[in-house]
């Protein structure tokens, strides 16, 4: 270390004390191998123990440490100080969400929406354990594998202006996960997800800005899932009209 420091301007909001969020500046030792989360942990441990933020795994798996870094939604465990140094770095809570305190956002809306798409395998009839696993070919797996990578980090919600303007929008990650289960050859619950996915607040509110895909740290491509869902649901609708006897 050569005594160099990096400056972080961090949004602070203490409920009951602050009317609106404010920015507070902190200087931390500059280390080339530090990610933003390391700097936040340094502040918490050595400078200001009142700073609040979420984190857990520190390796891009848990999806807890999503924040706005210089206005862009990022996992703070995956962005290095050196990418910005010597410029000051602005750290804010994910936009489009209510703020609980400092960098901690209220994720209840997302969790409700996630649950509404039933992101689990639904079977009309369950096999007995003695009958063995539900087998799948590599091709069947590849139809949805990319969409299983979602870690619910909500960066896509922060990047989506539609969600920012229309909070009732189901949003990118929830739709991507609904699509993921609809594409799973073991699943039989497509119809039970349709009411939510196919509603106005579901896929049809998406105007395909595409930023959800740009910011996704796991290359899930929610924008593609939403647009492909539009095609699937439209095809299903035509089939239901043209084949009135349910011959899908």
């Amino acid at each position, binding site marked *: 270390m050569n005594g160099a420091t990096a400056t972080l301007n961090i949004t602070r*909001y203490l*409920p*009951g004390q*602050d009317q*609106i*969020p404010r920015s507070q500046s902190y200087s931390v030792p500059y280390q080339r191998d530090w990610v933003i989360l390391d700097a936040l942990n340094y502040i918490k441990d050595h400078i200001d123990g009142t700073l609040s933020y979420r984190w857990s795994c520190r390796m891009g798996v848990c999806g807890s440490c999503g924040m706005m870094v210089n*206005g862009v939604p990022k996992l703070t465990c995956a962005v290095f100080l050196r990418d910005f140094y010597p410029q000051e770095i602005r750290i804010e809570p994910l*936009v*489009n969400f*209510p*703020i*609980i305190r400092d960098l901690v956002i*209220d994720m*209840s809306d997302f*969790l409700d929406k996630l649950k509404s798409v039933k992101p689990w395998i639904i079977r009309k009839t369950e096999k007995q354990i003695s009958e063995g696993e539900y087998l799948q070919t590599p*091709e069947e797996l*590849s139809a949805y594998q990319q969409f299983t990578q979602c870690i619910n980090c909500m960066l896509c919600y922060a990047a989506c*202006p539609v969600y*920012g*303007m229309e909070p009732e929008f189901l949003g990118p990650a929830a739709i991507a996960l609904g699509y993921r289960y609809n594409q799973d050859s073991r699943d039989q619950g497509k119809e039970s997800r349709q009411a939510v996915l196919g509603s106005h607040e579901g896929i049809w509110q998406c*105007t*395909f*800005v*595409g*930023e959800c895909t*740009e910011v996704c740290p796991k290359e899930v*491509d929610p*924008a*593609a899932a939403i*647009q*492909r869902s*539009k*095609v699937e649901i439209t095809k299903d609708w035509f089939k239901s009209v043209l084949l009135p006897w349910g011959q899908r």
Partner: protein
Amino acid sequence: MISPRPDKSMLYYPKMPATWWLRKRSYFLFMLRELSSVFIAIFLVVLLVQIYQLSEGPKSYTAFAQRLGSPGWIIFHAIALLFAIYHSITWFFSTAVVLPLRLGKREIPRNLVAALNIGAWIVVSLVILYLFLSLKG
């Protein structure tokens, strides 16, 4: 089980600024794509009026066509053309996302799908231009 929920009265609800689309280049380009439909809609209304004038007889049509030759309308059509080209290109790139094409087990790269679409579009446009020019001739 009741899931823990924060006290809503203690939350801060940030407002999205009206200038959100100026914050990022991709947002701005998105808004341009949306705006392009306004110009295309106006162009289509003008085209419908033009077709109607055709049914009203040659005198009426010529007078309307002359009005369209004014600098204001020429500028409008030039802008509408640029927007139409931009809108079409964004849709060709969207097509590659919406309808992934596979060659065997491998997905064809999206940029290649978009390039093939744009290539086909240029060929069709040239054929139409050729037909138009030969009819005029």
